[in-house]
Every structure is written in structure tokens, then in C-alpha cells.
């Protein structure tokens, strides 16, 4: 920065750095929002208008009445995601936004996978489900519905494993995230 404070020289100065422009990576934002009609629309509309692409978005109630929690995952550099968080703060119904990407967290999602199963391979498939800590939640002569939870990578791995049997249907919730340790974003809100 020393060259910046110097008197203008005849040589051209270096170009001003643009905000952001850093490496793009996956970020996880946790947002506490008021449980009001339209709040999901406000959040998603803002992200669209500001040119952020949401990878996944999970919404649910919290233990506090009137308070909902969103877990938003998106790709972007640190500055862009910080800008996204600041823009979210501008929404009247948004109480708190935290980028937990750099923190130790538990990030789990749930998947339901409907896999083709025949008499010939069912036993083998069920063994895989057992070893993968999956849970059979529905069983028919031609199919098995397996519930599997874990990190995105763990779910990916399971899906890849059973793909050879033939996946008839797949649904994933997207990640929900919680910081490890005794700290609480909800308690932080009350202070």
C-alpha cells in the first residue's frame, strides 16, 4: 500500500483491486428469520436479484416460536458471500446471518433412495445398506427405499454405490448445519 500514499508519479499506477475476485468455494450460511409468510420468497428473490446462485436451501422451525432457520449453501468468493450475507441483513425479517464455513460444524443431509431390487440381489443390497448405516424404510418385491443421512460426501458415496442396482428415484434435503460446541446462534440472538 505504500505506493498508494505517494505523490502521483508519471508512471501509471497499478489498477485498483476489485472487491472480491478471490477463489470460489462452497460457503454455508445459517440465517435466523421470522416465521412469516413470504420470508422464503424474500430470501430467494434477493439472492436471484443480486446474482447469487443458491446450491441448496433448507428451512425449518426452531425451538423458539415464530423463529425459523435457514441453511443456505452457495458458491462464491469470501467477499461475494459476505456481500450476500449483508444483503440478507437488509431484509427486515432476517434476524441473524452467520457464515459458518470456516467453523467446525456438523453438516448433514438426508436422502431417500428408491433402488431396484430383485430376489437375486436383494440380500447383497441390504448388506451394503447395513454397512453404510442406511435404513430400509420401505420394501417391495421390486424395490427398496433407503434412508441415508450424513455429510454431502457420505450421501454421494452411498448413491454412487447403489447406482449399479438401478436408482428409480432420489430425493435429498440439502444440508443442515450446526456449529460444534456449546455456543448457540439462537442464544446469541437473545443477547
Amino acid at each position, binding site marked *: 500500500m505504500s505506493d*498508494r*500514499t505517494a*505523490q502521483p508519479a508519471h508512471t501509471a499506477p497499478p489498477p485498483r483491486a476489485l472487491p472480491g475476485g478471490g477463489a470460489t468455494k462452497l460457503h454455508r450460511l445459517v440465517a435466523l428469520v421470522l416465521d412469516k409468510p*413470504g420470508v422464503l420468497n424474500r430470501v430467494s*428473490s434477493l439472492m436471484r*436479484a443480486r446474482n447469487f446462485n443458491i446450491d441448496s436451501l433448507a428451512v425449518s422451525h426452531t425451538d423458539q416460536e415464530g423463529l425459523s432457520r435457514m441453511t443456505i449453501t452457495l458458491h462464491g468468493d469470501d467477499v461475494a458471500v459476505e*456481500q450476500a450475507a449483508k444483503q440478507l441483513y437488509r431484509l427486515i425479517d*432476517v434476524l441473524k446471518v452467520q457464515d459458518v464455513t470456516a467453523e467446525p460444524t456438523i453438516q448433514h443431509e438426508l436422502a431417500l433412495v428408491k433402488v431396484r431390487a430383485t430376489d437375486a440381489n436383494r440380500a447383497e443390497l441390504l448388506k451394503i445398506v447395513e454397512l453404510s448405516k442406511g435404513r430400509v424404510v420401505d420394501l417391495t418385491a421390486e424395490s427398496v427405499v433407503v434412508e441415508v443421512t450424513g455429510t454431502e460426501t457420505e450421501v454421494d458415496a452411498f448413491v454412487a454405490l447403489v447406482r449399479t442396482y438401478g436408482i428409480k428415484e432420489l430425493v435429498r434435503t440439502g444440508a443442515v448445519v450446526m456449529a460444534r460446541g456449546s455456543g448457540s446462534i439462537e442464544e446469541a440472538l437473545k443477547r
Partner: protein
Amino acid sequence: MTMTKGGSAKPPRSGAGTGAGAGPSSAAAPPKARERRSHVPAAGTEHAAAIERAQREMLHEGASAQSVPADAAAKARATREARARIGADVVCEALIRQGVGVFFSYPGGVILPLYDVLGDYPELRHVLVRHEQGGAHAADGYARATGKVGVCMGTSGPGATNLVTGIGTAQLDSIPIVAITGNVPSALIGKDAFQEIDINGITLPMTKHNYLVRNADDLPRVLAEAFHIARTGRPGPVHVDITKDALQQETAAPHPTEQEVIAGLPGFRPNMDGHYRQLKTAAAEIAAARRPMILAGHGVLHAHAEAELLAFAEKASIPIAWTLLGIGAVDERHPLAYGYMGMHGWKHVNRAIQSADLLFAIGMRFDDRVTGNVRTYAPYARIVHVDIDPAEIGKNVAVEVPIVGDAKRVLKAITPMVEATPLEARQDYLDQLAEWKKDSLASSWHGSGAWRDGLLSADYVVQRIGELTDHEAIYVADVGQNQMWLARYAGFRHPNTHLSSGGLGTMGYSMPAAMGAALGVPEREVWAIAGDGGFQMTLQELMTLVQDHIPVKIALFDNKKLGMIRQWQEIIYAGNYHSAHLLGPDYLKLAEAYGIPATKASTPAEVDEAIRFAQGADGPALVWFEIAGEQNVFPMMPAGKGLSDLIEHWGGPEE
């Protein structure tokens, strides 16, 4: 609101000369020379009499809060008390509680319940606009001129969508307005009912906040929140959509106190005070800087921080540049007032920014019209950025010292921290700035040279309007060349006297916004500066000016062109003048048809007389300035270029 001269706050409606018989036809009694060119319905004609009659009725009907006769107020109160209180009453009560003396609206099917009770509230002055867009701009102009929240209303469907341009204008310029619309009965919502549109979905991304109210019991809370949100922190528009049944429903719900409103908005806590350590860091940056510059924006005006800005600048001897919407943050005659920056800003200002080693930016957002190419913007400068909205900091340019806070409070806090620096300590720097300014004023003046051919030059007209109004009027720009000429040449002394659609750049803004300003600040003369393009977009409000006797003076700059379009086509699109040519009506006949005194000036010699003619008219007046057809605004920074790449002339050095 700042009132400097003639600051007696008289009620909008009781102004001298607005009494019976003072219609436009009997106004002004112009001398013979003016009479020749003025077109006013001749006194005694049926047309003139009809207008006068209508005005008298209007003036008698509506009244401001201050001028309601006691017996009328008592009668209205008795009428209200004799019937049940419904949602529509809550709306009226809320407006009165919020101090809204005047609002702008247009009726329609689902908002009629409100019109049904309006007559029982003589404290409220309703201005019937001719198009909802005009109403939204008028609320915006009222808000900008007074610093209070402006209110506009419309019905569902087209009424609501017509408001959208005005709401967008307020959003981009952070103007506190509350827009209220009726919606179809709640049972019909989502059924594609007559005049139903998802206006809540439409305004959601372009308001600070919006509401859909289906129950009258929610109205007191929602309306109180709407006003609180609109004016608190970074101001902005709030839209409240109310179903017809909610307007008709009986309710006993009380209006909340301000404390209850705040408690009910846990997600809305604007950070007003700058962080102490950041303030200290900023003060150290200022101490180390040798070529500092203050960039003052709209936030200074919003925070009423003009005095604090000056105290800060004077203590540290730092010159002040301003953005388009920062005009008025400092009196342009002050020795530290350096000038207007940006795409059509003064060359000396942009040059100073490009060589500054510290920018102290306050209440501005580094808009692309201010920075041009960010890569080449202020290449030697470190930046302290003060804004009440954290999202503005680091959005467009990376900054060294971010400070989140209200401009007034931050300036108050930082001024004691900065070293007192006499002007002499910056003598070399200030001398150089003065030299650049001298150069730039000499070379930028009268950009087109049209005046040499005896044609009327718009910048000359703007300058004369400024001078003949003693720079004490409120000047409302439209969009395009007229806007830039006004910003550059009118000469501003006071905050909130320059109104301009900066962010959205809404053509058609000036006349309706001037309407709101004139009703909000009746003690100041109000001039709408419009090009012939923008004027033709919203000229239907001429009749509102007449009907409500709103004394807006309109300076119509007619070059029979879309001037800024033509300028871009000349300079950037190799002279491909598609659609730049614009026909207009005979504006004297137009004004005559509306019953507005009008005159025309086509040469520099006629300018002063024409301006005085408008000033002399009682009520609205129009001056048709036939300006040179091919005049450019210079300097100009072509889009995508940097502040050092200003075009100062085009077509040779003689231009």
C-alpha cells in the same frame, strides 16, 4: 428540513393569493410585452370561469391539518363517532398520527372504502393526481423536499402497477415513502379476479419492506411499522397492500407506540454509531494524508449532517466533492466546496479524485456513474467509507477503512479526533486544486457553443433560473441532459433544494415530484426543469397543478430531441440517430388548454423576461425554452471508461 430564507412555516393551503378569484386567468397581470406571447385563457371566457370555479370548490373542500375550521372539525369528528370504526378509518388515523398533511392518490374499485371515509378527515389533504406514477413521484418529491415520509395511494391491478416506477425511483435513491394500495377481497386473492395482480410479489424486490394486510386488526401495527421502517436508518419505500375487506372490516385495534413498533421489529436495528476503533483508524488516515478529499453523498442530507460535515471539513481543511444526490450538502460558495463529481461532473473534481491520496466517502455508494471503470478509479487513494448500510461498504470498491453509521453521528464523533489543520498547511495542494478549478470552469462553460450562433443554450438558461431565484428555490430535474445541466450550472446553496432521480433515472420525474415539493415546502419557489422527452411522459399532471393550484414553475427545455440519446449516438454510436428526433406539441396551446400561463423564449435576450413571467404568475406557469437542437453536456465520461478519460469537446476545438 432546512428553511433559511422566508422560513415562516405557513400551512400549504393558506398561502397568500390562493383565495377566491385568484385563478390563473387573473394571475400575474403581465405587462403588454409579455401578454403578446403568453397564452392564458382570456378572463371572462367560459373555460377560464370553469377552471376558477373548480379551483374554488377544491380549495374549499380540502384543507391542511392546520387550517381546518373548528366547526368543520367538530362535524367530521361527530360523523366518525356516529359510525363503526373500519379499516379505512385506521388508514386515515395512521396518516394523521404520522403527520402526513397531504398525500397523492387515485381512486379505484377496491380502494373506494377508503374514499368513502376520507371526507370525515378534513385534517388530510388528498391530491387527486392524473396517473398513479405522478402520485408516487409527488410523494417522493414531498419526502425529498421536507425530509418527512411521503404517501401515495392507488387501487389494485393497474393502479398498483402504475405506482411501480415511482416506488422504484424511491428505492434506488433511498427516499422514505409509504405506498398504499387496495387489493381485491381476500377471498378472491389468487383467483385472477378483476384488477387483481400480485403487486406484493412485484414490489417485494424493490422496496425496503412490503406488506399484504388481510385483516383490519393488523392495520394499526402494519402502518406504524411501515412509517418507522421507511424513515429509520437508510430510508426507503415501504408498500402496504390492503384487501378491500380489510378496509371495510370493523376493528378496535389500537395504534401501537413507537416503542411497541421497535420491539415488534427485532430484525430491524440499524447501526447508527460508528465503531470507535474504526473512527480512530480513519482519523489516523486523515492525519497521514496529503491530498485528502471528502466525497459527500445523499446520506449527509438524509442525516441532516450538513453542519457537522462543514465542521469536520473546516477543522481538517479537506475540500468537499459531492455526488449528484449530494448536491446541497454544502453551500457551493464555501471555499472548501470543490464540486460535483462523476460522469458529467466537473473536470477539476474528477481530476482531484484521480490524484487524491485519501477519499473520505460519506453517505455515498460509489455508483458506476461516480467511479466509471473501478480499476482505474482514484488509483492513489486509500478509502475511508462511511455508510449507514453495511451492504454498501465493499460492494462496488474495496475500501481500507469501513465505518458503519449515521453520517451525522459519525461526523460528530470523528471531528474531535482529527487534528486541527490550518488551510496554510495544505497550501500547495489547495493552490493546485484552485488552479484546476479555474481551468475547468473556463473550458467547460457553455459546452456547445450554441450561444455564439445566437441560439439558446440550456446551461445559460439554467444559470439564469438559478440567479433570478437567488438560488433559493427548489429545483427538480428530469432525466438526461437537463438533469446534468441543472446539477452543474444552477448553483446550490441549501440542502434538499435539488431533487433528481439519480439511481433509477426516471424520465417524467420532474413535474410530479415538483408538485410534491411545492406542497411540502410552500415557502420556497419550485422549478421543474424538464426536457421535452421527460415532460411528455407525465404531462397529464398539468391538470393536477391547476386543480389543486400548485405553484410549480415549469422550465421546458425543448430541443425537439432526446438530447442525451442524441449525444450518445453522436459520440458512441457513430452518429446513428435512430429515434433521437422527437416531435412535441405547441406547448403554448397545450398550456392554454390546461389553463396554465405560459410563455416562450428562443433567444438569450428573452430568457430573463420569461423566467420573471413565470415567477410573477400566481400558481403554476410554464416557460417553453426553445434551445439549440444539438448541444452536448461536457465533459462526459463514456460508459465503461475511467474518470481520467473525460471527453471535453467533440467536433473540434471550436465546440
